[in-house]
């Protein structure tokens, strides 16, 4: 059975964000709502698209459940997107701070 999650990029800084069950966005893929049927997926996508001040170009991705039930993206691209580059950065400064406020600011 396919599982999905709705993701998009934060308008503020372009970071990947994931739609939670409460309708807010999180920067952690484990917080995202896992969807197991097409209708629900399309409903949530429509909801995401209605909030495009906060999110850019939302779309569904396929996810899997890990051993502990935690969701993780099925594709390598989405796993890299969720976890960051797989090579160390030449300079390790923190990411410029987010200006997001409220629930969407819940980040790792």
């Amino acid at each position, binding site marked *: 059975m396919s599982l999905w999650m709705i993701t998009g990029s934060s308008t*503020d*800084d372009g970071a990947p964000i994931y739609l939670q069950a409460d309708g807010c966005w999180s920067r952690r893929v484990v917080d995202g709502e896992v969807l197991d049927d097409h209708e629900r997926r399309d409903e949530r996508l429509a909801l995401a698209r209605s909030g495009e*001040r906060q999110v850019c170009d939302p779309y569904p991705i396929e996810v899997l459940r890990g051993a502990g039930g935690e969701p993780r993206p099925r594709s390598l691209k989405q796993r890299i997107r969720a976890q960051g580059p797989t*090579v160390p*950065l*030449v*300079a390790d400064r923190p*990411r410029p701070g987010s200006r997001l406020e409220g629930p969407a600011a819940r980040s790792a």
Partner: protein
Amino acid sequence: MYQYDAYDKAIVEQRAAQFRDQVARRLSGEISEDEFKPLRLQNGLYMQLHAYMLRVSIPYGLLASKQLRKLAEIAEKYDRGYGHFSTRQNIQYNWPRLHDVPTILDELASVEMHAIQSSGNCIRNTTSDHFAGVSRDELEDPRVYCELIRQWSTFHPEFAFLPRKFKIAVTGAPTADRAAVRVHDIGVRIIPDPEQSGATACQILVGGGLGRTPRIAEVCREALPREHLLSYLEAILRVYNRHGRRDNKYKARIKILVGALGIEEFRRQVDEEWEKIRDGVMRLTDEEFERVAVFFSSPDYERFTGKDGGPRTLADDDLRLAAWRLGPDRALGRWVASNVTPHRVPGYAIVTVSLKPKGKPPGDATSEQMELIADLADEFGFGRIVVTHDQNLVLPDVVLERLPEVHAKLSGLDLAEANVGKVTDIIACPGLDYCNLANARSIPVATRITEHMEDLDYLHDLGEISLNISGCINACGHHHVGNIGILGIDKQGEEFYQLMLGGSSSDDASLGKILGPAFPSSEIIDAVDTVLRTYIDERESADERFLDYVRRAGFGPFKARLYSNTDKAAR
């Protein structure tokens, strides 16, 4: 170098102010992402995997030290302390916040820089020879032509919405193409004028490119008088703008049109258009040419004394460089051998600063490194730095006798890797670690190759080899024109890599061909190693370059070693 006039200054500042308003409206929700996207792209702002990416134009790769310091400052204040130098001689910031981008554009404007036309279906940053103005094999300084093209193409009202992006490169070294002009939409070669002894003309190449349909450019005009350069380029762009395909983005580049029409018919249409405009306002008078050329006049080079008390000569320089190359300090010797190029002025040398240290992403530089290079440019040269299309930086005017000091200072910040032109001087796109379009990672393959090449004597014995890596068929890593090309592909969710051999982007331009079935990520480094060892074992002598060996011997010796195992052959 060129300095903005009041017009340049005004349009750059106005564009930054305009974008500030557009960003504010996007952040407030007044405009949607669909509405905002074309606006941000016109200002070089992309959306990548993890963040926005801002691409800043560096016209023909030339930077003043104060501009490089500003780029370092932006990396430090608004990004994560580094920037990525690209194959278009630009710099990319991978982590800016949208809110900060207008301020970044203001900061750039304060040092006569911008991000205009670094994205979108318009004429992009014109690139050039990174040794422009200083190399011994140059016929004429191409930067004057590049600047004229920049002024003509910036905000050109006819060419803001071309069928697809459009890239122009210019070289002034007719026998040493370092600008890859044959794989550009238009390549301009400054050549001796066949009609007039001592004069120069422009050979115009058209229809080259990489991507999913790689193609070597063809000659559209054999010898164009320079006064007609802009009108002729305009005629080419008009034909392309009128007939280039807009129904399919994969067939929209000019190379497809040239291929479909054939070069004869394309040339006929260009000539027909050109006849209407050739003697109009775009004709470059000598005065107009001089207006721009004066910005590229030679700096005030010191006149050094040679060994015999007379003026120092180029032969003196060559002897000095040879002595260092063979001297007891092997680190300095290797660096001089690979990273230092003779200068056209006695007493000076061209230093290429490698941005390809072992295990680091090709083309990345930290803000500290950028500041150091700017300081070196001021202390040892004339405050100039050039970005190369193969993702290194050049100090074009280093006082030759001070090379050991420069080497020591560069070594202190991991900037003295002696590998320019060697197989670890890898061109790599950002790949799947950053790019939304990529299918596979490029950077880890590059870093694994550089880490694998531990034996520096072996590296230098391999000689001149280019190795280019792209993470998808769009070929931002120029894999088709690497002597060794690597293309990352996605096979049922797994990263695989195709190996290509035989590519070149220089005067002997050629497109590499796929060697055989692709290798999984776990085997690609060993495959590259096997290719190199095959060459070492089979070449006629150390004087036979890798590319010459491939062209002479073909793929047989490589395939025999790479695919001898039946399991691999069946892959």
